């Protein structure tokens, strides 16, 4: 598969096939990002489409030497925050509905393993729901989406030291909440 920088460059030159490949390659990640922010599959689907349209419009502003993933996530995060503000509500602190939780399962080798993964993920989602917005976003950006601390500092316009300590606090808080829900988790 073409490397990401080449794919983005081809998109910038108006290559329709490259754009289609880009959409198919990033649809799960963008949808996942929107879902984690909005916690509603319909809203997430709608915002994910908006994110792709915005990315297409902003292709010219992408700098060649830049890593595309933080740029993509920055565009995505801004749109999710805008939508959240419009909805005037924070992500609902409720359990993931069963039909939506089924979307979250990975391609596990056996039904038992899939069921266990689903249970674990629902547990993590419940723990995330109880966290503050800032700490939950830290977990989303660093632990789930895999951004580096300096990339998050740039994205959130905060000093690197603040981001690092907030990241550690968020991880400890999440682990504490997960253990409170299931003391055997990770044992």
């Amino acid at each position, binding site marked *: 598969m073409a490397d990401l920088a080449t794919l983005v460059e081809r998109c910038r030159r108006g290559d329709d096939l490259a754009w289609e490949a880009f959409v198919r390659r990033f649809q799960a990640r963008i949808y996942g990002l929107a879902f984690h922010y909005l916690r509603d599959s319909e809203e997430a689907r709608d915002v994910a489409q908006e994110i792709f349209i915005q990315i297409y419009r902003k292709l010219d502003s992408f700098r060649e030497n830049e890593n595309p993933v933080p740029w993509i996530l920055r565009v995505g995060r801004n749109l999710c925050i805008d939508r959240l503000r419009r909805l005037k509500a924070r992500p609902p602190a409720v359990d993931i509905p069963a039909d939506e939780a089924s979307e979250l399962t990975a391609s596990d080798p056996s039904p038992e393993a899939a069921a266990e993964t689903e249970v674990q993920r629902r547990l*993590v989602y419940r723990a995330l729901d109880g966290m503050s917005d800032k700490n939950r976003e830290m977990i989303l950006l660093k632990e789930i989406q895999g951004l580096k601390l300096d990339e998050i500092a740039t994205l959130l316009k905060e000093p690197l030291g603040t981001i690092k300590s907030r990241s550690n606090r968020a991880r400890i808080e999440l682990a*504490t909440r997960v253990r409170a829900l299931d003391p055997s988790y990770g*044992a």
Partner: protein
Amino acid sequence: MDCRSFLDRLEALLDETLGGDARRAAEEHLRECADCRQLVELARSEPDGTAVEPPDNLAGSILERTSGPACETARDRLCDYVDGSLSEIDAELVRLHLDGCEPCEGLASTLVSLAGELPTMAEIEPDSAFANDVLARTVPLRRRFARRLETLTAIRELWPRVVRRPRFALEGAYVGTLVLVLIFGPNLPLAGVPEKAIDMIRARPLIESSEARDRIARMENRVVSGARDIWDTTGGEVAAGSRRVATDLAQRYERTDETRSDLGRRAGELVDAVRDADPGAAATALQKIGSDLGTLWERLASNESEERDNPVRR
């Protein structure tokens, strides 16, 4: 030797480094003192595995009475410990804490599990129609994008042809001459600049040799008088010509009032299009600007009096 003196020498006796009179005195004391003999026997005996275990939570009790529990400090370093980014000594200290602290050890295990679990949550597959929906919604954008690319390519191809055509050099020479006349022409602020420059040089003699200075002064006088002669014979014509050119330019400039106003409006449209990230509107504005520039140039270059005299040519 008394017991106190014996105890002072006990370590050396056990290490067999005590020698001479001191050793003999110590051995004599051992024979006489049962307590010290028992102490030496105990010290020389091998551990038999039945050592007394400390009471439960002895370390915890000691910490409570001294520095307090170290859990908070350990948790500050726990993420870095799990990530393997702690220094060797810090990692060892955290590991020792975890060995004796069940809650912190459990937290560390949870952090390790989460570090494996969370990245797998980044991707959530949307429904199968999602990609096609996105592609369908970006079709109009892609068309506009393609049109913009075509426009930019056309401009890139057109520009070298414009620059290379013979008339461009003539136009450049015409504009350059006008600029020179407007800067150094008679009755203009910069008209006397060359003479003033010579005066300044004369006021600051750089060469001390009087002969060289006189020679330069003579050369200056010849240059100035020659330039004055030339100006006296041709200056009037040049001044009249430049006035005619200036009048002609002013008339041509007035004729472009309407086009300049159009150009200003188009520039506003282009700025709006760029701000709205609308490539289609930007391309349209660029095309209109190109067309207006053509009209502007035609009005600047055309001679109305000629056109009035010979309308068929137009």
